[in-house]
């Protein structure tokens, strides 16, 4: 859904303009949505709330992460994933005051950690946030020039060759402000398209030698896609951050389930 909003912005400069859509519905595991007959307002609203949260964090405001709404699958009476069912029962027991004191205490610690991770996730948009602010203030060309000067962005790269998941690009000079292991977004600057909605691919820097930079893309398919879509365009590299939300949340979930297994009497967690 977020990508659909981005596509609206890319082609119509207005994320709420669905007029250029060539298909009638979006089919997703959460349901089927018909943009033109306004069945997606609830989902778009959720995206806006999440985006506002990220924006407020980046603007330095003291905001609290919101507890997420329950998954739309379960809300509609369908059977959700095991994880989803687990948290629903957990929440139900909490409201009924049935949680043992120790488990309740641990649950609070788990949720505090989850909220901290969500907040950090918001901060991973930092570079895009800076780009967006500068573009609004100075216009795209001047913003890119300033960002290039500060090392957030670098441009004038040309595609040399690729080898498996690696891609080698040549810069215009030897002063490439990137180091190995940094995560970057390779943006193909398209004519008449806003910079942040241009075609892009994420990669990590493997090596920088003189004016040559070696990037590692996620997969060979990503390299093939980038070759077809990106490398004929003017290439800009923007610093990016790795999203570790999922890998950080998984261990918390494992221990939360263990705590429930130990402290909640058998049968309580059954629906």
């Amino acid at each position, binding site marked *: 859904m977020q990508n659909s909003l981005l596509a609206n912005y890319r082609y119509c400069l207005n994320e709420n303009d669905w007029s250029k859509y060539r298909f009638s519905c979006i089919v997703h595991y959460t349901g089927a949505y018909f943009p033109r007959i306004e069945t997606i307002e609830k989902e778009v609203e959720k995206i806006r709330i999440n985006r506002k949260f990220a924006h407020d964090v980046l603007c330095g405001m*003291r905001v609290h992460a919101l507890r997420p709404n329950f998954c739309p699958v379960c809300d509609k009476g369908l059977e959700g994933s095991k994880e989803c069912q687990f948290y629903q029962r957990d929440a139900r027991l909490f409201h009924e005051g049935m949680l043992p004191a*120790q488990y309740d*205490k*641990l649950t609070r*610690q*788990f949720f505090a*950690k989850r909220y*901290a*991770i969500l907040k*950090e996730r918001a*901060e991973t948009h*930092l*570079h895009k946030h*800076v780009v967006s602010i500068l573009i609004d203030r100075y216009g795209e060309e001047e913003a890119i020039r300033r960002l290039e000067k*500060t*090392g*957030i962005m670098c441009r004038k790269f040309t595609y040399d060759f690729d080898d498996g998941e690696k891609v080698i690009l040549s810069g215009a000079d030897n*002063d490439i*402000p990137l*180091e*190995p*292991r940094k995560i970057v977004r390779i943006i193909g600057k398209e004519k008449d398209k806003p910079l942040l909605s241009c075609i892009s691919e994420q990669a990590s820097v*493997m*090596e920088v030698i003189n004016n040559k930079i070696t990037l*590692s893309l996620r997969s060979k398919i990503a390299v093939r896609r980038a070759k077809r879509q990106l490398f004929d365009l003017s290439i800009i590299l923007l610093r990016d951050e*790795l999203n*570790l939300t999922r*890998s*950080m949340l*998984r*261990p*918390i979930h*494992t*221990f939360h389930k*263990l*705590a429930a*297994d*130990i*402290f909640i009497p058998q049968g309580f967690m059954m629906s």
Partner: protein
Amino acid sequence: MIYLNPDQHRILKWRINSGGIAGVIGPPGCGKTTFGALQAIKLVSEGYANRVLLVALTNSAANEFSRELSIVLGRDASKFMCVRSGYAPGADNSLPIPFSNELDVIKKKQIVICTTQSLKRLSRKSNPVRFDNMIIDEAGIERLEHLLSPFVLGINQLGVQMMKESISYGVNSIIELASTCGVVATVVGDPKQSRPIRSEDYDLSAIEWVLKCAKCDTLYTTYRLPDDLAMLVNEFADYQGLTSAPEIAGRRLVVDCNTIDKEFRNIINPDKVVTWLDLDGTEEMAGPSSWYNDLEARACVRICHEIKKAAPSKSIMIVTRYAEQRRIVSKYLQQLGLRVRVLTTVGALGTQSDIVIFTIVRNNPERRIGAIGSLQDLNVAISRSKEKLIIVGSFDMMLNAKPRLHNLGVQPKHNFPQKLARLVSKEKYGEIVEAPPILRY
């Protein structure tokens, strides 16, 4: 032969004979990584554990583990017993320990070294790798959620079953929960050397959680810092008893002063362990949270050039808080063809060098010191050196620094830049040298 000091011996014995999660605090140079490597070898070789996991947050710290293991075990044994897993470009290929992400290969080895972020490769649902014991290094920079990734690989289902049968009412935190679920881990770190990146002031780091909820012990003898520097670090970070090992205490830089240019003699002065080069450069902002100082960068490179001339065998490291300054310094070093490590304070954790040059970068009329004013960053920067520490930057700036306010505008309790400046200005800990004209322009 590796000899353990009484502290290390006591802690090793304690950790071999006890289960659960425990913490070991190690001030700079106290042999945290060596201790971790030795513990892993002892656990495996004496049959206390079948498979041990060594985890660090950064690749450089994980490589340090590999280095220690290959020194203690030797080339063949380390190749046979150990495997380095994770992100291939981050692993040090010069070490004999093989690299692999193949679970079948990893399962055949007894000691596995990995970074926290790469642990997900080992925890695939269908075929996870289990560990009887784990050692987690540099836990000062990690948060509690980082600790949980390795802990997942140490859960003992039998322990969980036993817990279910006799619910323990002593479990009040996630650390205690993991401990009762059969996780056996030694969490090593120093809250005075590192803080989790981007965390709130009130948010505890992983090591602070362990200190709060589990048993802990401390190492007090440093094998890196000579006496003057150990005393400076002890007083600066308030370690309450950090001392140099007797064989290290009197160590000084040995260099032929006649080969050093006249302008640099006071700076490289081998009689003083700590020298502050008072240089009034101008800070420049780079990006949303980084800074650089061109004059300081050039001064650092010139000093390196001079040291390399006089003592080519000595290892040199340049430390800075800011990634942009590291880039600028690396660029100048590359132009001169000098091979010198340039690290940020985060990257420098767990590393050491004969000579360390610390560039402060910040210098402004408002005396706003920013992120470099923290205890952890300053402590790391001044405690990497084995023979000589050179601080490059404005002394007046540090002496009158206004540290960054906490959230809600609360004034911090301590002014660490000022404390450092005062300690160095005392004759016994170091000397302040005015920058010669050649470095001022």
